[in-house]
């Protein structure tokens, strides 16, 4: 059979986001795959060197379109560590709640992409609708639906408005009430099982070797979660579990995502119950004249896809000297995807890619 070169994306029905894969195919089989990023390279890391520490906040959140909140968090954490700013107790709780809500929104978006790709249009529409309910919550809290710019060095921008706790609880209850529907239509559906079981299988050894974190690693049996390992915000204040699966295939990865959403919702309820009163931010110096002390830090947090890290260097001026994000999609999209696509069939390319949760803006930055 003749060997062909096939361009999968960026304009392709099976492709989500501005990403492309160059496939060498023979018949239906992929012989070799080359990830081809760069369609969304905006050079944010360089642009951030031209702006003051505070001016960078509207920029970091745009690095990841799907889950901008963990980007704000990681940048605020790094600046706090360099400038030695303390965060009040209540702000820690608000940050955790806010990040978990955004994790649910991000997973629902991921579920939309995955269900849509498999042809489960109904489930995809439900997921999109439920994500929209969460965007309403964000709009009430911050004024923005997608980009919120809510986390700030020294805390969060403002406290919860009156009645906001009830709004969160009601929204999450109305989403949680649909979990049986999701299960019977999608997660326990034979079609999903047949399409995803054994596809894109990764052993734990391979996952470690290729730098996997997040669900990709947790689906191979390791409970590696930075919220537990190097706890930040208020994640050590309440009890919660890390969902783990053993098989390392697309089926396990999607199930980990489902279990994580449910765990996050339970965690939000616990955090809301135990949240203390008090101030939500500590004053920072005048942002126009703020010089952050010299030094470099590496901080990390668990975004909805895995380890999100930031290496930040300050030379004692009012602007960062170097900003470098370690995004979880980077090893997923550029290494693991290429390896897993070898000998896969063309029909499974989208399946493997979306189950690895590859988000293109995060790779390109």
């Amino acid at each position, binding site marked *: 059979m003749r060997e062909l070169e096939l361009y999968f994306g960026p304009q392709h029905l099976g492709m989500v986001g501005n990403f492309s894969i160059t496939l060498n195919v023979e018949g239906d089989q992929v012989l070799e795959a080359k990830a081809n*990023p*760069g369609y969304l*390279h905006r*050079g944010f*890391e*360089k*642009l951030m060197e*031209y702006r003051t520490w505070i001016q960078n906040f509207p920029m970091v959140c745009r690095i990841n379109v799907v889950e901008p909140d963990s980007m704000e968090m990681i940048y605020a954490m790094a600046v706090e*560590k360099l400038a030695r700013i303390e965060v009040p107790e209540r702000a820690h709780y608000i940050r955790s709640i806010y990040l978990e809500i955004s994790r649910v929104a991000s997973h629902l978006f991921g579920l939309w992409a995955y269900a849509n790709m498999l042809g489960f249009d109904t489930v995809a529409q439900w997921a999109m609708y439920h994500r929209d309910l969460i965007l309403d919550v964000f709009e009430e809290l911050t004024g923005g639906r997608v980009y919120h710019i809510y986390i700030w060095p020294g805390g969060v921008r403002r406290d919860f408005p009156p009645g906001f706790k009830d709004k969160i609880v009601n929204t999450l209850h109305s989403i949680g009430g649909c979990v049986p529907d999701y299960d019977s239509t999608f997660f326990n559906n034979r079609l999903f099982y047949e399409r995803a079981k054994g596809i894109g299988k990764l052993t734990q050894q391979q996952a*470690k*070797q*290729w*730098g996997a974190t997040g669900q990709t*690693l947790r689906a191979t*049996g*390791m*409970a*590696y979660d930075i919220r*537990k*390992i*190097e706890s930040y915000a208020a994640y050590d204040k309440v009890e919660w579990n890390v969902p*783990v699966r053993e098989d390392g295939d697309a089926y396990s990865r999607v199930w980990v995502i489902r279990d994580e959403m449910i765990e996050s919702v339970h965690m939000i309820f616990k955090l809301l119950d135990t949240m203390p009163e008090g101030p939500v931010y500590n004053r920072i110096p005048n942002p126009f004249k703020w010089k952050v002390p010299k030094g*470099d*830090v*590496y901080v*990390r947090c668990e975004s909805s896809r895995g*380890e999100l*890290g930031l*290496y930040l*260097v300050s030379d004692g001026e009012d602007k960062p*000297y*170097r900003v*470098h994000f*370690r995004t979880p999609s*980077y*090893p997923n999209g*550029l*290494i693991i995807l290429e390896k897993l696509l070898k000998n896969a069939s063309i029909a499974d390319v989208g399946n493997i890619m979306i189950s690895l949760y590859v988000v293109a803006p995060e790779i*390109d930055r």
Partner: protein
Amino acid sequence: MNESLKQELESTFKDIMVTDRRDNRVSVIVKRGQVLAVLRFLRDKGFEHLALISCVDWIDENEFELVYILASYMQNNEEYTDRERLHIILKTRIPRQSPRLETATDIFPNADPYEREIHELFGIKFEGHKRLTPLFLERDYEIPPFRKDFNTRKYVKDLFDNIPCIGIEKK
């Protein structure tokens, strides 16, 4: 843990500077020729998660700084120990003129795209790397764009101000 690691590193390698930064980060500064040996040593000690390779352009000192950030995965699949919290920040400096360094892809397979990115954005050549092809950019630049002497604002102005607006005819 940190103390014994520090002693082991200092006794195995010459010209190495190990600083415990007390926030679960240990900073290790080595000469460029020792990078691969130290990386291999640390990987065999259990720091098998290469989180990031970064590069900083210290233009005033006329040097590039390569930064390797290493951490470890969990030993068994359930228990959390202090070990996973510990990060090694390994740094080395190379001159800015014709910068080159040996690739770490033989030790850490996931170093591949990080080195490609640094090659493209800083112009550092990694010897032995099998695929130093462009990653993000679509055209060639005289100065690699993430170096400090590349002025993004001037570049954008020069490039886009030369494109005439739609509807304005040139007289």
